[in-house]
């Protein structure tokens, strides 16, 4: 193969076949993909959960991960949050002509390794190469398919007054790792992305606890945005306590330098878990047994709305003991003037 990705590689001809054989099949190998059909034929018992996500990240390789890993983690996590065990992935690559083959190879190897760790098969895929400038280096779409293992499954509208709000670990790591790399900032303690597949932790939790009300990964928009989505869907007030929210000191420091709020930064390896009060301790014990969730902790409580007809909202109890709203962002966080 040439040292750069050429338009030929997306043509469907011999060049495409070489790319599939020498790169994709080699790294994603499994019996279903090996059949080299146009699609995959799958069967799962019971209800299935499906989720799709498209990944664009700048830079493609960032501290703690890369777009390949992220494409697996992101979709595997979304499927897991539906109360499911992820089994299969589809994978579409949109590549800008001229991308170094070495870079594509690293991304594909990384994606393959992440899929094996998560225990999912990449069963079908697609490659398109677009002319230089028509896309920025590399975009990846993955769709995940999983087997729902609980009924009723956790859902955003099931938060109930009295429930405990738990988080699986520190917040803001991924967002700050990306933003500081983009700004060319280096911190004394390097900040790594937390990107990881959470499906094993989620499966243990679902099998150990019959009634998890809500599972959600606070990706884009961070904890604040995701909790608001839950509060609105469930029509409740989520009250969280600032001092209980785990944020690494280096992330806190970096955020204060850049004028950002860690509660709005993306996470790629954390989940919010809302369970009945009586199950909070049991849930934390199960979560902490997973190496990705050793820092799991309770951050707040679900309350009934204070006034009739009030839409769901998130209230933050500050370190001083005061209260304020924790709203949704209008758009992305931007650096400020002073």
């Amino acid at each position, binding site marked *: 193969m040439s040292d750069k990705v050429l338009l030929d590689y997306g043509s469907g001809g011999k060049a495409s076949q070489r790319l599939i054989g020498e790169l994709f099949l080699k790294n994603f190998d499994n019996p279903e993909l090996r059949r080299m059909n146009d699609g995959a034929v799958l069967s799962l018992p019971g209800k299935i959960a499906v989720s799709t996500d498209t990944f664009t990240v700048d830079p493609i390789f960032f501290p703690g991960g890369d777009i390949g890993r992220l494409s697996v983690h992101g979709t595997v996590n979304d499927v897991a949050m539906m109360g499911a065990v992820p089994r299969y992935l589809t994978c579409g690559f949109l590549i800008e002509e001229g991308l170094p083959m070495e870079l594509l190879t690293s991304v594909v190897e990384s994606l393959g390794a992440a899929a094996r760790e998560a225990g999912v098969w990449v069963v079908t895929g697609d490659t398109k190469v677009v002319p230089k400038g028509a896309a920025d280096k590399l975009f990846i779409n993955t769709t995940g398919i999983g087997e729902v293992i609980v009924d009723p499954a956790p859902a955003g509208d099931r938060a109930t007054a009295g429930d405990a709000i738990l988080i699986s670990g520190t917040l803001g790591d991924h967002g700050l790792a990306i933003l500081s790399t983009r*700004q060319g900032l280096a911190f004394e303690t390097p900040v790594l992305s937390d990107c990881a597949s959470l499906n094993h932790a989620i499966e243990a939790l679902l099998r150990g606890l019959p009634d998890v009300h809500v599972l959600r990964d606070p990706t884009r928009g961070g904890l604040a945005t995701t909790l608001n989505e839950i509060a609105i869907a469930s029509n409740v007030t989520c009250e969280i306590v600032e001092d209980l929210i785990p944020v690494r000191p280096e992330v806190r420091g970096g955020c204060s330098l850049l004028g950002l709020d860690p509660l709005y930064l993306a996470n790629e390896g954390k989940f919010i878990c809302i369970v009945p009060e009586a199950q909070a301790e049991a849930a934390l014990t199960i979560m902490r047994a997973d190496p990705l969730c050793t820092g799991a902790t309770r951050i707040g409580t679900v309350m009934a709305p204070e006034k009739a007809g009030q839409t769901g909202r998130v209230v933050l*109890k500050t370190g*001083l003991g005061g*209260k*304020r709203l924790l709203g949704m962002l*209008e758009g992305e966080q*931007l650096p*400020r*003037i002073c």
Partner: protein
Amino acid sequence: MSLEILDQFHDPALCRSVLDRLCATLTGPLRFMEVCGTHTVAIFRSGLRSLLPKEIVHLSGPGCPVCVTHEAEINAFLDLAEKPGVIIATFGDLMRVPGSRGRTLKAAQADGARVSVVYSPPDAIKLAAENPDAKVVFLGVGFETTAPGVAASLMMAKAQGVSNYRVLSFHKLVPPALEALLADADPAPGQGIDAFIMPGHVSAIIGVEPYRVVGERYGKAAAVAGFEPLDILQALLFLAECQRDGTPKVANLYRRVVRDEGNAKARAVMAQAFTSADALWRGIGLIPGSGLEIAPEFAAFDAKRDFAIEIKDCPPLPGCKCGEVLKGRLAPNLCPLFGKACTPAKPVGPCMVSTEGSCAAYYKYQVD
């Protein structure tokens, strides 16, 4: 300064003890204004506002740089962004600020305008050096805090011969605005401002001297304060003591950052690159001597001269009470547009536009 030291400035027990002393000192209502938008946000974000006794009335002043940038100035830079061969370099705050016809820099960017968010003016010079085919215009919005850095960038561009670097200076000065606010005829008794918390960052440049007039001529107490909850509480305690004792003092309570004499070097840089000029403040109007124009020595880098930009006053937005809010005459939630026609997603007036605007802070953080 290490973050551990800063931790003490939001220690709950320390804050509680100052709050208790504050409550014991109050002899009646204390209506205070914080001039700076960063203080506004700090008061809301820390939850301090929900803890203050009801005698303390919190008013937000004209100290959010984005808020006071005039509609005509916003339209000027939006027009500029649409010009071919221009790259706009800006701090992030200005990206979403709406001009007339709902235009924003963000929307202009989507339409193909070249807009780059930078962290500092030197980044904009770098951008200019990398794009010799275009003129890179840095949007100079901000107070005395931002102006010295922009002034230094003009000198840097001149020294390095970066001939395609421009600055569009809409800088504003705090003391003339403060004086205009104080000189404005006093409103009904009990509706005025009793005391001020002065901006921490601006004071680091200008020092304490420019505030003396607040106590001496207008009989109001003022404290320069930092941005942590304990800083703000200590400032409020000082203001309450002044009120109780009938001594309108002006004090610097932010000595870990602000020297009484300010930063003479930064002021010298400003004085070299800028000359003072009249400026339009959104919601307030023309304030004599409250703006900064680029000095003739740096005329080659002046976007106003290069693109023949003239800023003319235009009628205020119908129904918008931002002028009253910025002067401390009206609480944001009492404006008839607040939360209805005017929200952070669709701001009508300047105070709802910026994250540091008092209306936006009220909308975003106020629980009740």
